[in-house]
């Protein structure tokens, strides 16, 4: 993976700024709508006043007692009618501009509700990639300071602020019975049949990528921090707090790697490479993500 960002801090700042903008912009548009409605109401109030004035002068004209009074009423009535006509002309123009504004405000609202969260997600994925990359490559272009700044900045979906330490991926402790197996020690022949993303029938490729990313950034640091105390229930509890379904949550990923569907590798006597009994697709994704090793159970008869 090639990372061309000089400071992860800047990406994090942008993600935060985007989230803040989204809230402030929504508030601003609400204020704009309210102000325009209030001003329109003022104009409508003037139209009502002008209408009453016209009506009053019509009545005054009808009950005028002499020529002079009638003439005076006629003049005032003419002025009132002209004012009413002018106001109504403005009302038409305002109505047109208001409709145009509402179209833009609605589109902008959709952008805030739908497109902006996706943009934020794209940023978070990139930050996650770089965080994983930085954890795996101590000498990468992501600076040590940048890696350090990652910790604790992002509230997880659960709302909990999690503080992973910037350690190498393979320095994370694994549950009992599991070891880090370097991908270079796994037979490439085993992965030859998984050349394309279309080959992922059981779990889609994108889902698996997300799973490995979350394994690296959300599950393994927790296991390292609480060795042998976390289990599937711990991650189910985190999912429930975060409002995440089983399909999208951490429990499923934890189970896939450390419960019922773990990666299982066997190395026969005299062989250099492991053969894959279970987990080919995950190993392929780990390679694609630039991982150096993968958590697995092994049966190693080489030595």
């Amino acid at each position, binding site marked *: 993976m*090639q*990372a*061309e*960002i*000089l*400071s992860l801090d*800047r*990406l994090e*700042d*942008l993600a935060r*700024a*985007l989230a*803040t*903008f989204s809230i*402030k*912009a929504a*508030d*601003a*548009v*609400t*204020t*704009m*709508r*309210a*102000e*325009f409605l209030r*001003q*329109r109401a*003022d*104009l409508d109030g*003037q139209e009502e006043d*002008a209408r009453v004035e016209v009506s009053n002068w019509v009545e005054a004209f009808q009950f005028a007692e002499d020529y002079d009074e009638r003439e005076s009423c006629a003049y005032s009535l003419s002025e009132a009618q002209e*004012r009413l006509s*002018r*106001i109504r002309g*403005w*009302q038409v*123009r*305002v109505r047109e*501009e*208001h409709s*145009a*504004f509402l*179209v*833009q*405000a609605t*589109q*902008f609202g959709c*952008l805030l509700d739908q*497109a*902006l969260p*996706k*943009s934020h997600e*794209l*940023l978070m994925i*990139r930050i996650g990639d770089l965080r994983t990359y930085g954890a795996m490559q101590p000498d990468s272009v992501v600076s040590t300071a940048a890696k350090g700044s990652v910790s604790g900045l992002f509230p997880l979906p659960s709302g909990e602020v999690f503080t992973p330490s910037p350690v190498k991926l393979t320095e994370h402790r694994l549950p009992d019975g599991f070891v880090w197996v370097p991908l270079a020690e796994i037979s490439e022949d085993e992965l030859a049949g998984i050349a394309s993303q279309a080959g992922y029938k059981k779990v889609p490729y994108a889902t698996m990528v997300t799973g490995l990313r979350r394994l690296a950034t959300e599950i393994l640091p927790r296991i390292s921090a609480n060795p042998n105390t976390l289990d599937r229930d711990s991650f189910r509890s985190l999912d429930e707090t975060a409002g995440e379904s089983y399909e999208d949550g951490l429990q499923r990923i934890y189970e896939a790697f450390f419960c019922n569907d773990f990666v299982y590798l066997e190395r026969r006597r005299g062989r250099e490479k492991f053969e894959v009994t279970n987990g080919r697709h995950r190993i392929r994704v780990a390679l694609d993500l630039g991982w150096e090793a993968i958590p697995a159970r092994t049966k190693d008869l080489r030595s």
Partner: protein
Amino acid sequence: MNEGSRQLAAAWSVLASQWLETRSHWRDAVALEFESHCWDELYQQINELMRAAERLDDTLSRALRSTD
């Protein structure tokens, strides 16, 4: 300019400054994708909204002034 427009302009100014700062440090394919798919759309949309708000604000102000 009404208060809502001022608020939006201020929020946009902060975000745009942050974007320029980030962009100067971020030079990969994801940055280009973010710029073309996310940022440009946001930029265009907010400009259109601000223009529409400005036109409406101007029309309403003139209407209220000329009919008072």
